[in-house]
């Protein structure tokens, strides 16, 4: 009997940590991770305590009646923002409560969510490049500036994707992308015979790299009382911004602007 309960607790704990680490790597804030994991655990009638950090999650699951406890620690996979997973897990957590899912059903759904296709590259590249051109327009750029920013963002993002595939250090990938985008932006505006740097195009060509998710999650974690996670996310966002700035400055140095 006790063996059976222990086995069940272990399965549930593994599933809960899978949910938690997936949410953490996909870009959910700490409060959401805690709520979701607790909500799912409660439908199975267990108490859980969670320690959530950027790189790993610790979970203690307990069955007060039988005086059973189980601890487990899991590393978070590489952080890549994926809101389809956040949305899918949120929907799933409510269906678990309402439809009383089994652990097996949940694991099948998690497998489905992690293998969902991303947007194809030929859609991501032009749409993000268009976003770059939009930034340029909003900063006061004209049509030629927008075209320059479009091309710079397109190639910059391509370089970032390739660098990520080659498993370079994350901040280095950002630096490569920022450097490529700003080299192209500055190069094109010099080539087109204006003879000076187009500030709008140059500054907005790297904006596709801004760490929006770490910075906003940092703030929402902090006002939620998860100060440690908030500080760590903020620092992460700060280092990304620093890598972007370094890319811009290197381009300025290369062209001696």
């Amino acid at each position, binding site marked *: 009997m006790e063996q059976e309960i222990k086995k069940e607790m272990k399965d549930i704990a593994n599933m809960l940590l899978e949910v938690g680490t997936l949410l953490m790597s996909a*870009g*959910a*804030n700490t*409060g*959401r991770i805690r*709520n979701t994991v607790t909500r799912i655990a409660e439908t199975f009638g267990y108490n859980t305590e969670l320690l959530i950090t950027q790189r790993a999650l610790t979970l203690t699951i307990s069955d007060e009646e039988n005086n059973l406890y189980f601890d487990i620690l899991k590393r978070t996979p590489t952080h890549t*923002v*994926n*809101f*389809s997973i*956040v*949305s*899918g897990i*949120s*929907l799933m957590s*409510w269906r678990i409560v309402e439809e009383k899912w089994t652990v097996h059903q949940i694991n099948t759904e998690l497998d489905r969510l992690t293998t969902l296709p*991303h*947007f194809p590259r030929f*859609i*991501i590249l032009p*749409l*993000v*490049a*268009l*976003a*770059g*051109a*939009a*930034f340029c*327009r*909003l*900063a*006061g750029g004209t049509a030629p500036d927008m075209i320059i920013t479009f091309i710079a963002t397109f190639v910059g993002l391509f370089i970032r994707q390739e660098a990520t595939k080659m498993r370079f250090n994350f901040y280095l990938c950002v630096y490569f992308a920022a450097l490529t985008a700003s080299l192209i932006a500055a190069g094109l505006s010099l080539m087109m015979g204006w003879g000076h740097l187009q*500030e*709008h195009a*140059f*500054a*907005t060509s790297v*904006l*596709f790299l*801004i760490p*929006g*998710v770490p*910075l*906003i999650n*940092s*703030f*929402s974690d902090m*006002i939620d009382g998860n100060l440690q996670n908030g500080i760590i996310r903020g620092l992460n966002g700060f280092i990304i*911004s620093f890598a972007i*700035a370094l890319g*811009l*400055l290197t381009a300025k140095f290369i062209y001696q602007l």
Partner: protein
Amino acid sequence: MGWTTTLLENGIWFGFAAMGFAVLFNVPVRTLFYIWLLGALGGMTKLALLHFGQGIIIASLSGSTLIGLFSIAVAHRKHSPPLIFAIPAVIPMVPGILAYRMILGLIALAGDLQPDLYMKMLTETANNGLKVLFVLMSLAGGVAIPMLITRKESAKELKLILKHHGTEM
């Protein structure tokens, strides 16, 4: 071109900037149109307030708060958490040019400048830097405030309560 035409044109660009980030963050396809709409509305709110003489900090806070409020309403319709709509929609309001000038200013301050030039640079950089800091904080705050005011952990609970009182959104 009147300022309303400019406002509408910029609204379209705000929407496309938001959509680019949405695609980068791999949002579900069903949310894309609403992210475009929220981005455009928030950005236009910011620009309209700037036009009527408000500062960039208050304008950004108003725009992002509007996005935060609408993201809760849209979350019900499209069955996705509010942050999925709100985060890509506020990113176009990030003050890129100001941040760029701040970085250049900081580098210049680290170099050897004439005292007069140094003071001028210091004033400008401090001004730009503080604007960037406060705008970023008001963007993040605007997204978080609506969820805090409703005092619920999830937008779904909010919907259940509204249903209970017979006032479906």
